[in-house]
Structures are given as structure tokens and as C-alpha cells.
């Protein structure tokens, strides 16, 4: 049993705007900003509708302790996120966080590979910042169904994040779309297979649809690379109280996505 660091915090919307088709960028002001770590998540309450009672679990792309702001990127996938798009600057609510266990730094030296699919981008952005702050090199693959679902400014950010790692002089950031309307036509795993032929990696970080992460994990295993995955589940509480967000473990039994994850070692997960 570990002490719980998850608390209730007020937040205020600083900005909330679309950055791609059904993809929004939300910046909030909250004192939690200095406490949350890359790969952790929070549960936001969207005010104004008593018929949907659960909070919305969201991972974040960046946090800035000194200014007390957190940047979230979310996809409009249901009633809760649709209502979230209607929150305007100055509106207030509460969040529960920070929740779960986040990304770990690579244990081996060398370049990391980040693979994001669809709404899996925010925690991968947080991983990129974590690596950049440590001066560690990385390449990245960002996939989406179509060009209009790619938040291009975020991809530019991935390209431009500073690095003092000499081996990172030629960072590669590949974009894929299912229909070929932007970047490489195909899945992120197709792009990953190509990169693995050209470069070696010490660590893979991935977040996206389950089937994509299973493919990324399989490729990583075939190449003997440690792989961390950020899992997504329908969540009740978001802090270990209700046991609704179970993830099957390769050793048998279940872990809780909110409490034991959302970041797991890919080898722990029963794909």
C-alpha cells in the first residue's frame, strides 16, 4: 500500500480551442500543475449536466509549475468531451489528480522512439518533453486516420523541442495517416518497422488505440527494446477505489489502469 497523492483541486479555463477535426487544446490554471508528472492523468468535472455523473479522465501534454498551467489535448468522443468543448476562458470547475504512475526514464542509454496514435498524442507529448528536459534524444511517429485529425502545431513542437544530446542532431518525426492524406500512408507500426531497420533504440514509449499499442509492443519485443505503454480504459473513480478499469496482466489476473498504470511495461500486459 502506498500513500495516495491524489487530491481535489479547483481549476480555471485559460483557453479552450479546436486544433484539428474533433481535437481540442485546453489550457487550465491549477495549483496541481507543479505536482503532476509526465504520463500521469487527471479527472475533470464538466459542470452543467447532472445526468452524466462521472468525471472525464484526461492525460496532459505539458505542465508548467511556475505559471500554474496545464495543457491538455483531447478528442471529442462522447457526451462528456462534447460538453468540455463548451467551457470558456474564465469558467471554473474541479479536477481530481494527479492520478496513477507516469513514464519512467529509459534505463539504457541511447535514443528513444515515441509512437502516438490518435488521442494517444498528449501523454506522448509529455514523454517527449520529459526526455528533452533530460537532454535525451528521441524520434517520433504520430498517426491519425486523416490529415484533418493531425494537430500540426503539436507535431512541429515535437520537431522543435530542444535537445543537447549530440546523437539527436537528426531527430526524425514521421507522420502517418490511414488514408495517405498526410505523411506516410499506413499505420504507425508500418513507419516503426521502417525506422527500426535504420536506427536502434533504447526505449519505446507509446499511447494510442489498444490494437496499435499491441503492434508497437510486438515490434519492440522482436527488436529487444524495452517498451512502456500508456493504457486507456473507461474509468469510474480514477484513483483506485472502484476497480472498474482493469487491465489484463500477462502473468494472469488484473491490474487497475488508474492506480497501477496508466503506464505499464508492455511485457506486463496481456495483449
Amino acid at each position, binding site marked *: *500500500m502506498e*500513500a*495516495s*497523492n*491524489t*487530491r*481535489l483541486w479547483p481549476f480555471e479555463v485559460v483557453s479552450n480551442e479546436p486544433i484539428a477535426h474533433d481535437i481540442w487544446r485546453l489550457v487550465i490554471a491549477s495549483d496541481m500543475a507543479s505536482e503532476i508528472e509526465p504520463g500521469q492523468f487527471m479527472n475533470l*468535472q464538466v459542470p452543467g449536466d*447532472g*445526468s*452524466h*455523473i*462521472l*468525471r472525464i479522465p484526461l492525460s496532459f501534454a505539458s505542465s508548467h509549475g511556475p505559471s500554474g498551467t496545464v495543457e491538455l489535448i483531447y478528442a471529442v468522443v462522447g*457526451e462528456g468531451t462534447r460538453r468540455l468543448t463548451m467551457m470558456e476562458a474564465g469558467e471554473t470547475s474541479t479536477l*481530481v489528480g494527479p492520478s496513477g504512475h507516469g513514464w519512467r526514464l529509459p534505463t539504457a542509454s541511447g535514443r528513444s522512439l515515441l509512437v502516438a496514435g490518435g488521442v494517444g498524442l498528449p501523454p506522448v507529448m509529455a514523454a517527449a518533453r520529459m526526455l528533452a528536459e533530460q537532454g535525451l534524444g528521441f524520434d517520433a511517429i504520430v498517426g491519425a486516420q486523416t490529415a484533418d485529425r493531425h494537430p500540426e502545431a503539436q507535431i512541429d513542437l515535437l520537431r522543435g523541442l530542444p535537445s543537447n544530446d549530440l546523437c539527436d542532431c537528426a531527430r526524425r518525426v514521421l507522420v502517418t495517416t490511414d488514408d495517405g492524406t498526410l505523411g506516410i500512408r499506413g499505420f504507425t507500426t508500418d513507419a516503426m518497422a521502417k525506422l527500426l531497420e535504420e536506427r536502434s533504440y533504447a526505449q519505446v514509449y507509446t499511447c494510442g488505440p489498444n490494437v496499435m499499442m499491441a503492434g508497437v509492443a510486438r515490434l519492440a519485443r522482436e527488436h529487444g527494446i524495452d517498451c512502456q505503454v500508456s493504457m486507456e*480504459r*473507461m*474509468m*469510474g*473513480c480514477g*484513483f*483506485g*477505489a*472502484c*476497480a*472498474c*478499469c*482493469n*487491465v*489484463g496482466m500477462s502473468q*494472469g*489476473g*488484473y491490474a487497475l489502469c488508474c*492506480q497501477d498504470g496508466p503506464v505499464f511495461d508492455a511485457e506486463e500486459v496481456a495483449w
Partner: protein
Amino acid sequence: MVSVNMAVNLGGIAMRNPLNTASGTYGNGWQFEGFYDVGTTMGAITCKGVAAEPWDGNPAPRLAELSGSAIMNSVGLQNPGVASFVEQYGGYLQGLRDKGCQVICQVAGHSIDKYVRATELYEELAPFASGFEINISCPNIAAGGAAMGATPAAAAEVMRAVRPLTKRPVIVKMAPHDVAEIGRALEDAGADALSLINTIPGMSIDVRTRKSRLSRPTAGVSGPAIHAIAVRMVWECAKAVSIPLCGIGGVSSAEDAAEMILAGATAVSLGTVNMYDPACAPRILADLEQWVESQGVSDINDLIGAFEC
């Protein structure tokens, strides 16, 4: 300054106030320490149901949100077994006792023998337990669970098997049907108190795939939407038995808790609300004290069953 007596006695479990927690919505308490001091706030907590041996619980998805202030779950009592539960959480739970919060340990089982074995293990290993809640009403397990509490005879059989094993208070967690008849049978079989209601079996179908939105065809509905049903069942049960009741079902405010008390509940559990409003307990407690005072009484016990019809 509010100065009313909030202390109640739930079948031998002396609670500093009527607030308890619905098993399965509150972890084992420690998850809420970041929201408020559990040990100095709650009258009692009811821990997650634990069986003699570990259970994996049901596959994902275990949760669906409904559009009418309700959720459905099919967790299926994932638990580590009594020995591991005590090893992991015993120290923390003893700490709650030391602060004056009662700790109710929930007993899960697939058969009479399994309920007996789990109770024996608790008796041997869990000195921190203020009492036990026998769960004969979980709708999400294939064997045991709700089937054990489906009829007065079956429910009483479990109670009679467990009764000689412990001198500590035994509460029975009831399913949402036939509460008067089954409640009477449980009282006759030696139950010290009853808690009701467990979740209401429901279904939620994804009409695109024609499959359940959860991993099982049926699952338990909970949340504010079921509150009125729960109040009615507490009232029906209270009229039928003389042992105290713990009211459970969609309580999300002091007003909801007060309704339970007026309907006949001695204690009130917070359930689904813990998932979306996890810091609510101190606020509900303060509001409940104000309500007692506003009713012109100095003791909350004067309001138990004070519904006027």
C-alpha cells in the same frame, strides 16, 4: 455552533456519526486520504469484499455510464483473499480504528463453505475488524453472490452458518428485492443489522454491435437514479424488522442521507458518489448535522424512522 448527538449504533458497531461507505466504491479507505482525514471523519468504512482465496474478478469492460445519473458495473469482486488483504491493509485499517472510525470487513463467497472459510480467516487474522458484512447480493458473479440471497431460506442459511463463527457484529448486504421477507429471515437467523440495497441488475446494449456494453450481459446499476427505489426498500425493510439498517443507494447529499434516516436507516453509506465527488463526506456530514438541528431535535436517533405517512 451545532451541538447535536450524531452517534448511532449499527447492531453493536458504535459509530461517531451515521456515515459509512458502500463496499466496492471506497477501495479500502486509503485512496481517500488525499481528500480528507478518513479516520477522524467517517463513522465507519466498509472495505472491499474479500473471499477466502483471491478472485480475479470479471474481464473488461467493467463499467458503463448511463445517461440518467447512473452507472453500471460488473467488477465481480476482484480481491486478493483475506490473508493478503490483511497483510496489505491491516496496518492502515487498525490506524482508522485508533482514530475512532469503525472498520467493517466484507465477506464474499461462492458457497456456504466459502463464506464460512472467509469469516474464519478474518476472525483469525483481522483484529481491526469492528464487524463483518456478509455480501449475499453481488449481481456480478456467476456462482454465489446474489444467488445466495435470492430467497429467505437461502439468505438465512448463509447467516446461520456464519453466526457461530464470530462474536463481532454481523451485517448482511441485501439484494434489491423482497427486502421485508428476506430481512425477517435474516433477523431470525441472527443478523445484527442489514445493509441495503446492493446495485440493481440492469442491461445496457450497444445497438451497433448488438453486444452488452460491459463484459457480461447484465450488471449492477447504481448512482442517484436509484435513490428513490432504495429509500422505498429501506422503509419496507424497517417496518418488517427490529434490527438496525444501513441505507445504501444513490446518496449524494445530506438531504439524500436524511431521507434514508427518516425511512428507517440508522446508518447511511456513500457509494457511487465517492467515484465522482470523492471529497463529499465532510460536507455531507456537516449538512446532515445542520438538518438534525433544523428538525428541532438534539439527537439524530430521534429522527430514525421518523417519516410521517
